[in-house]
């Protein structure tokens, strides 16, 4: 008996909420997820893919020109030596963190609703990390000696400076990218096997089959697999906390007012999850419509996601308040000035965009109507990402443009190449995501099947068997073998 979405949105006081609508069986889940990939490419896909590739080519042009001419093509100056480049880096890394949170942290908290979105979110993480890595890579100037960042032999016979947060970033982000890729891939193996078993052409069978590693759903394999999944989730959780904390330390270990604040590590992590969930929301609103997966990625999922955004947005707001109070309380004139300058100085426009997007507008999510309205969710997800981009911009640029010595004060204005790099990075992100949804099951099908009521082995027996009262001994082997019963 299918319930209406409206009924299902009522918060259940007792019992588990129905996560998947229209009471599908296992096969229809398989079909719903696999079928869009097996069809001829829909027009809708091309409508997203082509503009994404266009933006990606802008990135190619911008980066090539950057390597040729140098960092001077950007608007960076003294004192603002970092602006859009590092803002974009932190922005993209932050977005990536939501994928890991959904995969790993929600798994540890046994939030089964994550199964509808974790595959797409993990993919989003990998692509976001790709986009993020571009910026520290290209902003070094002499890109051809970027290998100096790694502990590899080099022509000067020197080692990298392990005490620098910039180097911790190299380790943290590359470990994060690797582990995210591994986690995503491990989760993908059963679904690739599903695609292999459904493949109609030899090419598809070989391609999916190769990457499926010969998976055959053996319980002895699931046994170790589930252990690995749990371990990876348990590892990814402190990893995601550490990565964005290390990114925050790029700023926090300095002595610059507005940068050197002890609350940065958890504050950055909360902000990252906030913006990442917003991006997942943006992607899911579009994908569930295009791929007709509204019964798997439901309004209830969006409700939960909006709540998480409300929580993390509140944490961000809390951090803003704490920073401001402490800036006054510290009695440090430079510290206090930095915050007054943010709110009332030349960059006040950026500051108030940040506050209205990050603190004021998410308050709408206190209301269930807003949390379950697709237009509001979509618009809010974009507003939040704009706000979070501005947060990093405000932190980086305003603290640099006016620090201790007024004679060294300046102002940063972006050039078209700053803009091109940012837009181009969106091109890379959406191109990769389009390719992902075209060829890879975008829902973790085997995981979604586990949340269906039929997946519970302590439920009803199958039609061939007459129903008997079973006393399952929960594996303790206390019941004597009865032989053929």
């Amino acid at each position, binding site marked *: 008996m299918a319930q209406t979405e409206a009924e299902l949105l009522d*918060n259940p*006081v*007792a*019992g*588990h909420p129905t996560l998947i609508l229209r009471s599908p069986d296992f096969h229809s889940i398989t079909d719903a997820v696999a079928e869009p990939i097996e069809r001829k490419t829909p027009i809708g896909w091309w409508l997203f893919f082509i503009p994404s590739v266009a933006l990606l080519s802008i990135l190619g042009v911008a980066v090539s020109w950057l390597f040729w001419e140098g960092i001077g093509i950007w608007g960076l100056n003294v004192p603002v030596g970092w602006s859009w480049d590092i803002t974009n880096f932190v922005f993209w890394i932050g977005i990536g963190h939501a994928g890991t949170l959904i995969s790993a942290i929600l798994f540890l908290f*046994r939030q089964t609703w994550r199964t509808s979105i974790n595959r797409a979110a993990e993919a989003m993480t990998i692509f976001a990390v790709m986009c993020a890595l571009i910026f520290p890579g290209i902003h070094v100037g002499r890109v051809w000696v970027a290998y100096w960042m790694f502990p590899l032999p080099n022509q000067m016979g020197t080692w990298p400076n392990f005490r620098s947060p910039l180097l911790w970033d190299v380790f943290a982000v590359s470990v994060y990218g690797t582990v995210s890729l591994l986690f995503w891939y491990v989760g993908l193996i059963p679904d690739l096997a599903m695609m292999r078993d459904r493949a109609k052409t030899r090419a598809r069978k070989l391609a999916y089959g190769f990457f499926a590693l010969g998976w055959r759903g053996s319980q002895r394999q699931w046994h170790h697999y*589930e252990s690995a999944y*749990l371990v990876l989730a348990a590892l990814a959780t*402190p990893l995601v*906390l550490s990565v964005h*904390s290390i990114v925050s*330390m790029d700023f*926090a*270990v*300095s*002595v610059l007012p507005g940068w*050197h*604040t*002890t*609350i*940065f*590590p*958890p504050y950055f992590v909360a902000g990252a999850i906030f913006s990442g969930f917003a991006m997942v929301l943006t992607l899911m609103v579009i994908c569930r419509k295009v791929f007709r997966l509204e019964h798997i990625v439901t309004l209830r999922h969006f409700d939960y996601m909006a709540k998480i955004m*409300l929580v993390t947005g*509140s944490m961000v707001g*809390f*951090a803003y*308040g*704490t*920073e401001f109070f*402490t800036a006054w*309380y*510290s*009695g*440090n004139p430079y510290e206090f000035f930095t915050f007054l300058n943010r709110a009332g100085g030349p960059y006040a426009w950026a500051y108030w965009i940040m506050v209205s997007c990050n603190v004021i507008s998410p308050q709408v999510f*206190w209301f269930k109507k807003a949390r379950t309205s697709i237009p509001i969710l979509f618009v809010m997800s974009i507003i939040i990402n704009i706000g979070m981009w501005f947060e990093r911009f405000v932190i980086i640029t305003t603290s640099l443009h006016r620090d201790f010595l007024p004679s060294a004060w300046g102002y940063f204005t972006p050039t078209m190449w700053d803009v091109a790099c940012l837009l181009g990075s969106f091109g890379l992100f959406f191109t990769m995501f389009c390719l992902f949804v075209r060829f890879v099951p975008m829902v973790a099908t085997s995981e979604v099947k586990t949340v269906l009521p039929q997946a519970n082995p302590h439920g009803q027996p199958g039609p061939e068997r007459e129903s008997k009262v079973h006393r399952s001994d929960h594996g303790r082997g206390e019941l004597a073998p009865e032989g053929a019963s």
Partner: protein
Amino acid sequence: MIPEHDRVSLRPEQATIPPGHSWNRIPVIGAACALLGIVACAILGLGNPKQFFFSWLVSFLFFLSLALGALFFVLIQYAAQGGWGIVLRRIGEMTFATIPVIAALFLPLLLGLHDLFEWSHAEAVAEDALLRWKAPYLNVPFFLIRAALYFGIWSFIAILYYRGSRGQDVTGDPGVSARLRRLAGPAIIVLALTQTFASVDWIMSLTPHWYSTMFGVYFFAGSFVGFIALLSVVAAAMRQAGLLDTVISAEHLQDVGKLLFAFTVFWTYIAFSQFFLMWYANLPEETVWYQARLEGSWMTVSLVLIAGHFVAPFFYLMGRAVKRRNSTLAIGGAWLLAMHFLDLYWQVMPTLHPEGFRPSLLDVAALVAVGGCFVAAASWLMRRQALVPLRDPRLAESLAFENA
């Protein structure tokens, strides 16, 4: 284990302390300790008032942090609609219901404001530009108003949730759960803000020149670890004593153990981040706080904290079996309670004893006094009601809960 079909509802006898049970005597024992402690404090404190106030502050903060940790725990359970922890929720409720008692235990500190806080001395403020700057916030009248505000708000939330839950035992009204869930979000925000400013007022301002934006989070982390540690000890002890042993299962214990592990790591992350950033930038206005705590015998205490509040519990609580057994989990919890106390001690005492770690009999006396009141209050509440929310609509789910 109660068979599945019997677990749908609990009979009240399964969830109350039977008459004649040894636990009925705990309130009296607590009250006796309280009396003993207060007398000891009075005798020892007369000769050394400064030491008394600092010792009392540490013990007060310890038990307050447990109560606030309990409040967070219960509010989060409501807000996140968590099902597994419902059988444990009443323990949290009884813990935070002591907040009005703890408010009363705050009063002795009011006699010692001048001993505790440098900024309360007018002459010190007159000579010190920084203290003059902070005077609009750090002055005695505003301090008192804020304290009243904190306790007022905390008591209001605590009583609201306590009464709501107890009322549901009688009426079984599911609307109570819905109402408390809706209020939980705003309550958490208010709690976070008040707790942050309370930690600024009562701990951070002991070193009035020093500041850290992380401090509120640090206090929260410690208080949450403290409560989960208390929860593990109480839950394990209840099972051992034959109370709720058919209700709280090894599954629940394991989950409490996992939370204890996770938040121990979280505390370490927060504590280390605060230290690390101040160590790295090496600014004298910030390092002054750590310098006092990393010299001489305080350094030894710091090392004990690292080893005892992080390393040992990390490896101890990793294993599955440890978290499922009464004795082993309770040992872990008791150890972390001691470490949490040591953490608060380490935060507060170097202000009084910068020269080194100087434990005093008053430390013990204050702990016994404040602790006795806390235990007496919480356990008295325990005798008067069911130990689990009998008619919570999701109780069955919690009873049947199983780990993967």
